[in-house]
């Protein structure tokens, strides 16, 4: 069932395209040697170039270009060996040069496509229009003084990739899935940390609505949405607003809007006094960006495995369910953790433990894969203890809990707590003898046909062994002794 919005005149289809700004992972800025680290003292990571001082000139950072090319390759996109930087001219307090260096006419990356995964298990291909490199602006703080805005230029000049999609998405879910997938690819590639809280990834959402079979109607751009959830909410809110306008016989005006996250509505940005006229033209400080095919090839050869390929491998080689494969490949770190645990072990068992008790444990202690108190090595060791019958599944769960609490290795916990499973038949038989002696009446009842009492003997035996008896052996020996 495709997504529509029910209006008074019938169903409306929603058309969505995203422009995503992704901060390039690099040590230094796009055109200056200042650092890019988040959260530094105001104006401490600013060169005279970033501050637009007289006579300062831009020199491009090779790694930023490489990151854009890697991303383009990850998006199955055309890498343009000849591209160019243009100036986008406008005045703003946090734009020191009075222009942003961007790529307007000739972007470094052309058309591509990615496949998104939807909740019902289906997939959809979303077209990528282009990716280009540009400078970020500084930051204006409006809440520090009653009549002044404060300017921090630390972000000024940091490299951004603007990734523009085709208007191929038709529901909030698809928009969310697209951004999720894009973020996943960027993080796999290591080209953007994908941190939406810190603004490393932000989306401008283009939304329009139409009746089935129509061409595109006027779209509005909802600017700077900073979470996947908000993107989905903004799409819905903006689409509903447009439906109401059209159905009231009014026009949707092409404009830039903001998503008010507390009220869940979009509102028009204070209209600018001037119509925008960015006066793009080639930046005369920067000759064209010309790439060698051999360099692009070497970047391609060194690309890490991407989520789609990895997911397919988990299903095909490891026999995982598509769902488990999806969950384990969502984050690069999770996949790496999984592979470390699964290496040399039963991959399905590893998947079950990770998606089950391990994720639950992370949740309980509020940790992520990166900060997990349980290392992949220790979790693997735990699985080994299950495989060699040292631990029962039940005991292993207890041990894992203890591992989350103490960070200790499973072997140590087993030793300290004496949790080692008893597989010595003589020892088990001795306990069974005691249990049978203490419950002679129940033995008689059992032997006279009350089979249900078998569970009672198992329970008593395990209790006497503090749960450490190997369940299979206990069963087997009880059956033999009880006759």
């Amino acid at each position, binding site marked *: 069932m495709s997504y529509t919005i029910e209006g008074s005149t019938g169903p409306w289809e929603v058309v969505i395209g995203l422009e995503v700004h992704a901060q390039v992972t690099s040590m230094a800025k796009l055109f200056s040697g200042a650092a890019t680290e988040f959260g530094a003292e105001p104006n401490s990571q600013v060169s*005279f170039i970033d*501050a*637009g*001082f*007289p*006579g*300062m*000139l*831009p*020199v*491009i950072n090779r790694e930023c270009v490489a990151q854009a090319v890697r991303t383009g390759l990850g998006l199955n996109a055309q890498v343009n060996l000849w591209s160019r930087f243009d*100036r986008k*001219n406008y*005045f703003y*307090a946090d734009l*020191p*040069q*009075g*222009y942003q260096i961007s790529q307007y006419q000739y972007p470094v990356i052309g058309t591509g496509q990615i496949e998104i995964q939807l909740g019902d298990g289906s997939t959809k291909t979303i077209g990528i229009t282009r990716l280009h490199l540009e400078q970020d602006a500084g930051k204006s703080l409006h809440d520090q003084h009653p009549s002044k*805005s404060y*300017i921090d230029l630390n972000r000024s000049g940091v490299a951004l990739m603007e990734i523009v999609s085709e208007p191929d998405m038709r529901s909030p879910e698809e928009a969310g899935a697209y951004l999720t997938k894009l973020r996943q690819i960027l993080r796999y590639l290591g080209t953007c940390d994908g941190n939406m809280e810190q603004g490393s990834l932000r989306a401008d959402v283009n939304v329009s609505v139409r009746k089935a079979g129509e061409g595109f109607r006027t779209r509005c751009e909802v600017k700077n949405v900073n979470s996947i959830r908000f993107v989905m909410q903004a799409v819905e809110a903006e689409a509903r607003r447009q439906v109401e306008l059209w159905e009231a016989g009014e026009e949707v005006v092409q404009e830039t809007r903001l998503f008010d996250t507390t009220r869940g509505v979009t509102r028009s940005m204070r209209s600018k*006094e001037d119509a925008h*006229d960015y*006066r*793009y*033209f080639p930046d*005369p*400080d*920067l*000759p064209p960006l010309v790439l060698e095919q051999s360099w692009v090839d070497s970047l391609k050869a060194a690309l890490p495995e991407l989520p789609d390929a990895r997911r397919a491998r988990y299903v095909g080689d490891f026999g995982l369910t598509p769902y488990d494969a999806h969950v384990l490949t969502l984050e690069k770190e999770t996949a790496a953790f999984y592979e470390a645990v699964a290496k040399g072990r039963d991959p399905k068992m590893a998947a079950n433990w990770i998606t089950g008790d391990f994720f639950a444990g992370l949740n309980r202690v509020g940790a992520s894969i990166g900060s997990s108190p349980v290392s992949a090595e220790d979790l693997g060791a735990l699985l080994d203890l299950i495989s060699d019958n040292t631990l029962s599944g039940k005991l292993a769960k207890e041990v894992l809990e203890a591992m989350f609490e103490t960070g200790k290795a499973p072997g140590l916990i087993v030793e300290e707590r004496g949790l080692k499973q008893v597989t010595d038949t003589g020892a088990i038989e001795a306990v069974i003898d005691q249990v049978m002696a203490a419950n002679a009446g129940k033995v008689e009842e059992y032997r006279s046909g009350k089979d249900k009492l078998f569970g009672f003997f198992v329970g008593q035996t395990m209790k006497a062994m503090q749960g450490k008896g190997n369940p299979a052996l206990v069963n087997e020996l009880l059956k033999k002794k009880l006759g």
Partner: protein
Amino acid sequence: MTHPTELTIAGARRALAAREISAAELTQAHLDAIAALNPRLNAYITVTPELAAAQAAEADAALARGEAGPLAGIPLAIKDLFCTAGTRTTAGSRILGDFVPPYESTVTGNLLRDGAVFLGKANLDEFAMGSSNTSSAFGAAENPWKRQGDDTALVPGGSSGGSAAAVAARLALGATATDTGGSIRQPAAFCGVSGIKPTYGRCSRFGIVAYASSLDQAGPVARTVEDCAILLGSMAGFDPRDSTSADVAVPDFAAAVARGVKGLRIGIPREYRVEGLSPEIDALWRQGMDWLRAEGATLVDISLPHTKYALPTYYIVAPAEASTNLARYDGVRFGLRENGEDLKDLYERTRAAGFGDEVKRRILIGTYVLSAGYYDAYYVKAQQVRALIKRDFDQAWAQVDAILTPATPTAAFGRDENQDDPVAMYLNDVFTITANLAGIPGMSVPAGLDGKGLPLGLQVLGRPFDEETVFAVGGAIERAAGFHALPALRAAA
């Protein structure tokens, strides 16, 4: 002995090396000359006597140690478009206020590395936009030359008017300058000194206040061709901080000056015989041809068919680039601020108060030609014509090794002349502007006087990165012309 301010750079180097004069004495002689004449000529916006004295003392110490750089103790004027660490840099504009750069331009840094002494910052047209040095916010500079029997104040040319006037009046042995459409060569010609705009990319633009980035190029002004070659050798060189800086070796320019022109093919472009060319300039041009022919060069009649479109092309490209290069002067991080009701009002008041009329005109023209709907008709068209102008030269180099033209269509004019019509003023650059558009080197060499006793220059154009041939031809003209006339206003006169 020759008065210290009368020395050439080459001569001063010899005198300093022979300890016939100290750097301190040489510098002091120039500071005295500045104190005496600068109030009249206004060639310097800022004089830095303490800094100069300290640099001279350092040079003397280096000379004494035998570790002196090639320019140790040579006193220079620095066009006030070059950022100089710790010394106010104005670009001839009010908008920079009391801006003191915390950094040094690459070119001035190179000169300091080689031991030069900086006397101060030379006057210029505001943001290097002009051909008369009358648009400076710090007042016009005056040409030290006078028409015979006439005390009318003449312009030194522009935009590097202060540099050329200072060198001509013996207020410096040489000067840095910049040339976007003729701003080295035209003032050099007006003031009877030599100046070269090297190939685009030869000198780093890092730390030079930008006017039109694709055209701006630094170069020297000095009293001899050899001195220009010495200075350029120090100023030039690859700079990784400028993406348009050329990674090519710097040859020994000075060695090329005496090379001679025997066997060289010299192009004479017929399109430079423009309508209204003064008979005196035309005669000087022919004289120049005769000199070179006499020295063994072959003259070749060539055509540069798009020459007449160079000026209008320039007046699209340069203002377009300037309009965005000057957007950073907004009263937020440095320079002048005029407060306003809101940010936009602050910008508009600051920029209205900070920029002069000519700068505003060019910003407006540049903004207009880049704006939506006009970009293709103006800017792209101009870029295409620029490509054709460059192609004209590319084709000419198949036939010739250098090109000889007049430097300017007239001699220096009076301060109040040519001021009413911006287009008439722009025509001053008719012979020089093509070199900037094509990115090729061009040099102006004083070659004679007009009927009123004012200097006139000839221009030599060369292949990209072949400044050596330009110096060779310039040197030949200099020797043949034997130009020894002196300006009316000069030190020790």
